Structure formats: C-alpha cells, structure tokens
C-alpha cells in the first residue's frame, strides 16, 4: 500500500509545479495590467516610473463617464429585473409540477451555455422583428441602452435562476409545509420562511448578474445603437485605436469591481451548514 503511494513522488512534484504554472498563467497578465496602469509614461510598452496620474484622468474623460453611467443604468435595471424573474422561475421549477417543467428546467441553462456572439445575433434579429411590428403602429424605436438592458435581462435570468435553484435544492421542503401548517397563507409562508432562507442565494444571483452585466462586451456591442455605449464597449472601441495607460487604469478598476462582486457572490453561496463554529 505505502509502496504504491511512494512511487507517486514524481507525479506529486509534477502536480505541484503544474498548480504553480496555472497560477502564473492566470495572474501574470493581471499583474502586468495592474502594474502598467501605474506607468508614468504615456507610451504603454515603456516603463516611465510609478505614477497614479491615469486614475484621475479616467474620471475627467467625459466619454468614459458617460459610458460608465450607461453601464450602471443597464446593470441596475437588468440586475433588479432578472433577479425577480430568475428567482420566480427557480421557485416554479423547484416547487410546482406543471406541464413543460422538465423542458423549462433544461432550457434555463441554455443562455448559460450558448456563445455570446450567438446570443447577440439572436437578440439583434429579435429586436429587428419587434421594431418592425411596433413601428407599423406608429412609434419609432431604436437600439439604445434599454435594448442592452433587455438583452442582459435575457441571459441574467438564467444565471440567477441556476444559483437560486441550487439554494432551493438545499432547503427542506417541509419547512414551507410547517409554515402552512402553522396557519400561514401561501404568501406569508414564502415571505416569512422561504424567502429569508433563500435570500443568500438570491443576493448571490443578483451580484453575479451585476458582474456579468458590467463585464459584457459582445452582446452590448451588438445591440447598443448610437449613444448606448457601455464601459466595456468603450474600452473595446478605444483599444482598437491603441492601448493607452488610461485603458489599463479603467481595466484595473473594472477588475477590482467584478472581483469584489464575484467574491461576495461566492461567499453568499457557501453551504449554510458550514457556517457553524
């Protein structure tokens, strides 16, 4: 027994080295990005000494500020709406037996797995058809930040639903029955027992939705129209004109924001049982 374990010495070493290589692979580009965001020189590839000047510059750039505002509006709307809809879908799938439940349960993963580009083309084609329909009644609609918001809602619902469903799966269904048994109406049983218990899952889903919405570039780039530029779309456009230290600074800030969101989301998704001292 111990003999076979000892022959794994080289494999052991290799696996340990591999882990370090993977860490390096993940984090060296991030380090480069962060370090060069503090580059005093305006030429990206040349180190011109440490400076924080690009950070204030980011907040003086009107284009960046307006893109940031668009991003926050889109993220805010899509997070709130997709959290409510995604949670409802998760509860419907988990708690009720209805026709097409299994199909819906599978379909909910679809936006998670289909490529962003496909999703983007889909949404664009969809909006084109809808606009044609609406325009025939008079009003004229155009692509803009609300079409971005709708598109983000479309994929965020799935992410929220998947996270909330996982939480519901850990919940003992007899808790809701106990509440009903103790004279709570269906709504009160949800409000006083189910919702407080799945709330960490709901918040985790919301933070994930927020992060995904703030990070999305492909779908937003397709359905933004004029004046609907979000921050990632701006960065993507600007980078084609050349990488500037300013972009490094924005990217570092976005990295920071989404890291905080995802870490908080993961923290909230922890198994509640492991919280015990």
């Amino acid at each position, binding site marked *: 027994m111990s003999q076979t374990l000892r022959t794994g010495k080289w494999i052991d070493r290799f696996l340990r080295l591999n882990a370090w290589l993977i860490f390096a692979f993940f984090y060296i580009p991030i380090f480069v990005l962060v370090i060069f965001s503090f580059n005093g020189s305006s030429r990206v590839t040349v180190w011109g000494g440490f400076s924080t000047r690009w950070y204030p510059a980011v907040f003086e750039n009107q284009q960046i500020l307006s893109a940031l505002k668009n991003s926050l509006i889109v993220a805010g709307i899509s997070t709130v709406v997709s959290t409510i809809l995604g949670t409802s879908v998760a509860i419907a799938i988990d708690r009720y037996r209805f026709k097409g439940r299994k199909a819906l349960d599978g379909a909910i993963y679809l936006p998670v797995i289909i490529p962003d580009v496909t999703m983007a083309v889909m949404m664009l084609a969809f909006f084109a058809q809808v606009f044609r329909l609406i325009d025939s009644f008079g009003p004229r609609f155009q692509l803009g930040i609300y079409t971005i918001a709708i598109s983000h809602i479309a994929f965020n619902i799935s992410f929220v639903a998947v996270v909330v469903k996982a939480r519901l799966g850990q919940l*003992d269904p*007899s*808790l809701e*029955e*106990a*509440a*009903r*048994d*103790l*004279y*709570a*109406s*269906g709504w*009160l049983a949800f409000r*006083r*027992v189910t919702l*407080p*218990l799945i709330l960490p899952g709901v918040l985790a889903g919301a933070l994930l939705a927020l992060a995904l919405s703030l990070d999305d570039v492909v779908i937003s780039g397709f359905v933004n129209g004029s004046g609907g530029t979000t921050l990632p779309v701006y960065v993507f456009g600007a980078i084609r004109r050349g990488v500037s230290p300013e972009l490094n600074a924005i990217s570092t800030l976005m990295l920071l924001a989404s890291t905080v969101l995802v870490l908080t989301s993961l923290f909230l998704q922890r198994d*509640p049982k492991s919280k*015990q001292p």
Partner: protein
Amino acid sequence: MAAVELEAVTKRFDNFVAVDNIDLEISDGEFFSLLGPSGCGKTTTLRMIAGFEFPTAGRLSIGGREIGLDPPNKRPVNTVFQNYALFPHMNVLENVMFGLLMQKVPKDQARDAAAKAINSVKLEALLNRKPNQLSGGQQQRVALARALVNEPKVLLLDEPLGALDLKLRQEMQSELKSLHSEVGITFVYVTHDQEEALTMSDRIGVMSEGKLLQVDDPTRIYEHPAKRFVADFIGEINLIEGSVDSSGTVRLGDEVIACASPAPSGSQSVTIALRPESIDLTVENERIGGAMNQIPGIVARRTYFGDSHSYDIETSGGTLSIRRDNRPLNTIFDPGQPVTVSWHPDASNLLED
C-alpha cells in the same frame, strides 16, 4: 364525536394508488397510531389530514366538519414533522410564536403563550437558541411546543422519534404518552415501529399497500391479528398451514388442534398464527392439565439470547419457533431431544390472507 373521519378516502398519484378506499373514525382524545412499512400509505393519509395532499376521492372531516379541500392553514390541526422542520432562521421562542402570530394573536399575548408552552416541555433556558444549537431531543420538544401552543383539535405526528437514538426514543415515548393525557388532544401518530405503536396507542390501524387492514387496540392487534400481513408485520410469529376436514376440525400435521375461532366454512386449509412466546415446551409425554393443544416434536436447533432461548421444533405439521425465558430451574432442551409442544387454543389464530 369523531375527531377525524375518513370515508372511502382514496389518494392516487398518477397511476400509483397510495391510499386505497380507507374508512376510519378516530375518536376525540384518542391516541391513534397508523402502523405499517414504508410506502404503505400511512404518511400520505396523515398528509391528507394535514392538508398537504388532497384526496382523489372520498370524504374527510375533522371535528364533524368536512375539510377535504381546505388548505393546511384553514385546518384545526398541527403537525410534528419527521425531521421537526424547525425554522432555522428563528430562535426557539420565535418558532413557537409563529403559529400564534399567523393567527393574528397580539404579540405580547403570543409571547406569553409561547413561553408557557416552552416551559411545559422544559426548555425555558433555551428560548434564544437557534435550532442548530439544540440536540435532537430538544428540537423534538420545540416541535411539540410549536404545534401544541395552538391548541389544535388534532395533533399529527409523522414518525417524530425516528431520528432519535434508542434511549432517548424510549424516554420520549413515555413523555409523549403523558403529554397526551395532560392536554387531552387527539393524537394521530404515524410510525413503522411496532413497539412504539404498541406501547403508546389507544388504538392502532395497520396499513399495507394503501389498505387499512385492521383497526384494534394494541392487545388485540398483537394477540389476535386478523390478517396474515398484520400477524407477520408485528412481532415474531409462526405461520403454519393447517388442514380442515368437512366437519371443520383443524389439523396440524396429524394432530387435531383447537383454535381461537372456528375455521371458515368450506375451507380446506388455513393459516395458523402462533407467537413463539405463547408456546410451552415440556419433556416428551409429560402431559399438562387443562384444555391445551399438545403435539409431539423434536428439538432441531437451540439459540441462546441471554434473557431467553429460542428453539426450532420439528413437528408433523412443520417447524415451530419457540421462545422460552431463562429462569432458574427452567429446563434447557438439547437438539435431538423429543419434546411435547403445548399452547392454549386462544393463542392459535386463524388468518385471512
């Protein structure tokens, strides 16, 4: 008046019949147990009384009022769940107050009533604990207090002792029994544990495959089972085939025996049920007085159980398992030894299938 009444109640899930045409009347203040193996329909029956499931057919009344389709929150019953189902985000006091607050009892009144209920299950020191800080037995008590504080007409208990260890289970059994006589509420108790049912219940209903096979007090259920399943499910028992002749005389092998009831007319064979502890063993040809059944046999096997010996005795009618307490001076029989097997006619029950 009947506390709970089921008339021809059936529950079907798609093609599966969980509860099959049950008639049952549970009287006011009774401790009634539904006993059966898992999947027999006992829990579904309880869930229909609670309102978590609705009957596919039949009538269901509580306290004389038909409530077949009322939601659980409109029924004068409360449930103690198998895993207690205490609300993990509320402390003991909040858990117990929940039902009262939902019934719109003013908050301070609810707090007083809840505190009293918690006192009665001796948990007053743990008011502010969360359920995950309590032991299994303490959680069990909170679940009881949370249900009883509402003073329901009927308390439903779904295998409430299943998760406790043996010693605690026995303690809770006697506590439940005394709680029942204290509060005077009708208890409907679901269990697969025959000992629990026998020790606590006023009456037991034995279920199998959705059917209610026999409803009787514990003594009759144990000593005079009506059906083969009931006899076999509860305790150990010898089930042996006997023959019946045209005059209705029952024979076990070559020996004529007397039974608790006459053989059904026209039958040629019957199943005879005989508890191992109701059979006596004596040395060969030693006759016992009274109207006992006595047949010869040979000891095939002896097993030591500490407090008793178990014997397999071969007779002309088949092998009988016999249990004899170990008391000083009791004869120990050896394998191969010829013996006389005897029992009172009342101990041999004829069973329907």
